[in-house]
């Protein structure tokens, strides 16, 4: 075994992908469209999410191209408004919210807890159909004139002052909300009720803890967005006056209802990513995650505190000074668990045996960028600096650092880490490490200048801007092109690896999770028979004990 990688593949001349697995058990279109198997639904989600990610990415490219020049010369301001609105809606509702839970969570939570499938397979399939229905409806609105209210649907703009497809987009987001509710509901029931014998709560991998916390937010937060959108639809069609100041309604009420969901939504997006990072950091440093209970409880703490902080999005909107105090203080409390996690991951490396495969490179990228993203969040949570920095490119940089720097890096780390288990094939190491580095460089060049633009006061959602901001915008657009290349590479070599990738075998990383103790790609019922969990999570001694008892491959 070469000294600087832990990858151990079976002898390629004789090894082959097991004949009986969840992919080959049944084929034909119907076997995919009517499947109850959580693994197949995860694959369906993976494909549809990548599709929507590249549409959102193309829109991002258009935005960056427009902002190369101070004037709005690539497209009319109206078109620009529609482009950034659709970029926001597609990226948030159709990529970030579902990405890790619906793909990696769907595929691996049942395997990690030793279950045959999620508790409600039919509802899991329904969640994917709702997601596709909502996605197609969103694309339909894009084709037929788009919507230009921003992804925040600010009233009274969205109810009285635009004549674009606000209603159809509202229905699309409403349906996508249900898809997210059903995923979260499925996870909570599965984690509570279907753990294998011996799998106590503190033997669960931290990936499962993170998804449990995110699912609480999905189930309890999303319905409030649903009612907010229903009220916008009623206001827009019948003029019921709930948010219309001339009829006595209060537009700030919409902000309360909208942000009550939309702040927990950012934790729905980041928590699953944190779960992936806990897995990769442990596997590639061959060590149990430092302070397991601290990391597990900080996930749940983020979920619980996530509900108390929403009005820090509204500090300049005229909420009372006293409720500003409450929300700003609680925002400081919710920032602490993220700091705990970062330091615990860093100390997991201490006295480990670290290797630098692609998932680990993405993990390091995550740790750096999420730290910056998290800390700049405190800038915006502090009411004083929020006055100057909110609604400028500082806030754009902040949430891109957390969402793209944090969440997307974690998603790519997860996809590369579990690719051998999902497909039975290894991804090509060298080019993927290159892609990780290119993404990291492109990301920093794109979004770091935006922090400076933000302090300069350049407002967000501007199609044209004063000339002195141009140089920083040119850097940002240059970075965006590199980032685009960085994100295209994985699609190419991952599809290539489906046919030509090395045969991965059961446990290429020698990881400790239950999902690595069975064949890859796994059986439809995951395990020949339900495993008994008799060791702690991330127990590398137990793993060494397992070396000689190789798992028999069925079929």
């Amino acid at each position, binding site marked *: 075994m070469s000294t*600087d990688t832990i990858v151990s593949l079976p002898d390629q001349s004789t090894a082959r992908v097991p004949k009986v697995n969840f992919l080959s058990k049944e084929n034909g279109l119907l076997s995919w469209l009517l499947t109850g198997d959580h693994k197949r639904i995860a694959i369906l989600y993976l494909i549809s999410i990548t599709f929507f990610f590249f549409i959102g990415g193309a829109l991002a490219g258009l935005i960056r191209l427009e902002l190369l020049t101070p004037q709005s010369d690539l497209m009319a301001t*109206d078109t620009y408004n529609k482009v950034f609105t659709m970029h926001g809606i597609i990226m948030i509702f159709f990529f970030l919210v579902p990405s890790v839970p619906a793909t990696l969570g769907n595929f691996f939570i049942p395997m990690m807890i030793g279950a045959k499938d999620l508790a409600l397979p039919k509802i899991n399939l329904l969640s994917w159909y709702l997601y596709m229905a909502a996605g197609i409806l969103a694309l339909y609105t894009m084709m037929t004139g788009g919507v230009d209210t921003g992804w925040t649907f600010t009233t009274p*703009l969205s109810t009285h002052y635009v004549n674009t497809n606000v209603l159809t987009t509202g229905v699309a987001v409403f349906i996508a909300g249900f898809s997210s509710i059903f995923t979260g509901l499925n996870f909570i029931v599965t984690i509570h009720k279907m753990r294998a014998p011996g799998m106590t709560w503190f033997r669960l991998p931290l990936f499962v803890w993170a998804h449990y916390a995110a699912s609480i937010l999905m189930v309890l937060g999303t319905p409030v967005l649903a009612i907010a959108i229903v009220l916008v639809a009623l206001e827009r069609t019948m003029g019921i006056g709930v948010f219309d100041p001339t009829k006595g309604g209060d537009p700030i009420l919409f902000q309360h209802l909208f942000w009550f969901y939309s702040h927990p939504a950012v934790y729905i997006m980041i928590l699953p990513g944190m779960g992936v990072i806990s897995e990769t950091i442990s596997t590639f440093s061959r060590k149990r995650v430092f302070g397991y209970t601290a990391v597990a409880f900080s996930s749940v703490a983020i979920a619980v505190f996530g509900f108390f902080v929403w009005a820090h999005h509204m500090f300049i*909107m*005229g909420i009372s000074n006293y409720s500003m105090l409450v929300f700003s203080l609680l925002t400081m409390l919710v920032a602490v668990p993220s700091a705990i996690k970062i330091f615990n991951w*860093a100390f997991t490396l201490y006295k480990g045996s670290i290797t630098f495969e692609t998932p680990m490179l993405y993990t390091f990228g995550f740790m750096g960028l999420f730290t910056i993203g998290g800390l700049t969040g405190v800038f915006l949570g502090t*009411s004083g600096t929020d*006055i100057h920095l909110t609604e*400028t490119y500082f806030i754009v940089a902040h949430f891109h650092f957390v969402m793209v720097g944090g969440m997307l890096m974690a998603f790519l780390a997860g996809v590369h880490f579990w690719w051998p288990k999902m497909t039975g094939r290894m991804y090509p190491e060298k080019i993927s490490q290159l892609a990780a580095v290119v993404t990291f460089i492109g990301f920093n060049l794109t979004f770091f200048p935006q922090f400076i633009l933000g302090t300069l006061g350049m407002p967000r959602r501007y199609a044209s801007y004063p*000339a002195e901001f141009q140089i920083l915008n040119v850097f940002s657009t240059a970075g965006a092109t590199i980032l685009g290349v960085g994100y295209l590479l994985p699609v190419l070599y991952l599809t290539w690896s489906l046919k030509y990738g090395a045969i991965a075998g059961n446990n290429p990383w020698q990881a400790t999770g239950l999902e690595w103790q069975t064949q890859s790609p796994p059986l439809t019922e995951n395990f020949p028979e339900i495993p008994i969990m008799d060791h702690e999570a991330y127990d590398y001694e137990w793993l060494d004990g397992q070396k000689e008892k190789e798992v028999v491959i069925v079929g």
Partner: protein
Amino acid sequence: MTNFALFPPEASKIAPQMDALYFFMVLVSLIGLTIVILLVTSFSLLYSKKRHPVAVQIEGSTMLEATWTIIPLGLFLIMFVWGALIYFRVYTPPANAMNIYVVGKQWMWKAEHAGGQHEINSLHVPVGRAVQLTLISQDVFHSFSIPAFRVKREAIPGRYTTVWFEATTPGTYHLFCTQYCGTEHSHMIGDVVVMTPEDFKKWLAGSTSGASLAQNGERLFASLSCAACHNTRPDARGPSLANVYGSRLSLASGGSVLADDAYLREAILNPSQHLTQGYAPIMPTYQGQVSEEGVIALVEYIKNLNSDYRVQQTTNTTVLLPESEGKATPAAQKPAGQGMVKQ
């Protein structure tokens, strides 16, 4: 490639204070980031598989957990308190501030000075003087943002919001609308011109519209026949509005309220909720009949009304009202003060 800025100018009294907090936070973030990067890189070098092939399993240490819970929490709380102080300072205008009304409407800012100067997408302010902006929007959410002053306040429809600043260095600074408000959101920009007091006085004189805001209000007060009820005759149906601004009124629904701009606006648009004690709820609502600028003019007029002399002068026609036949208008005493509406 005109001037290439990396940090906005500090042109208001609050700017250095906010920048101090901003740089403290940048410093804390840099230290935090370097700690994380140092930890990750040093551990990666020291404990790579080559140098440290066998990992040593470590459960964790509550001591360390406590340190990186309490230290970040302590730092964040310092930032919270410091930030809250600045927030209260920016959003609580001093009493002696000079008031300028700003009306945001889809895709332009309209500033209205008490002296009757009206500006579109620009704001002229004197240096070294507290200037309070009273913001309102006529349609959607806008946000009045002056990066050089580090101030920003949302103009929302239906309610006044205020912010104040004290410019320190003369010059021309950017004015942005930072809340997405539709097609021309990115063209709803302008200049804030800070002038020395003399230049400001010259500008005021040069660009007046002939009638001060209060005089506009007075004309509107008469044309909407507010004086039919709000005159000082003993049988007046409405309360006298002289010196009402800033006084504490007891409401018909119990409780008392300070008669500030917001109350006056609400009393004009939703009178029945803001009824003063002892008066019948007969005041009609002017919602939809008078524009935001009209309400501003009326509020400015009422704020400057320190006696009813003017009201009687302009409303001697009330003697012609049917129910007042036979009753002579009570002789209006000329008040000690000049009784004129302040210019």
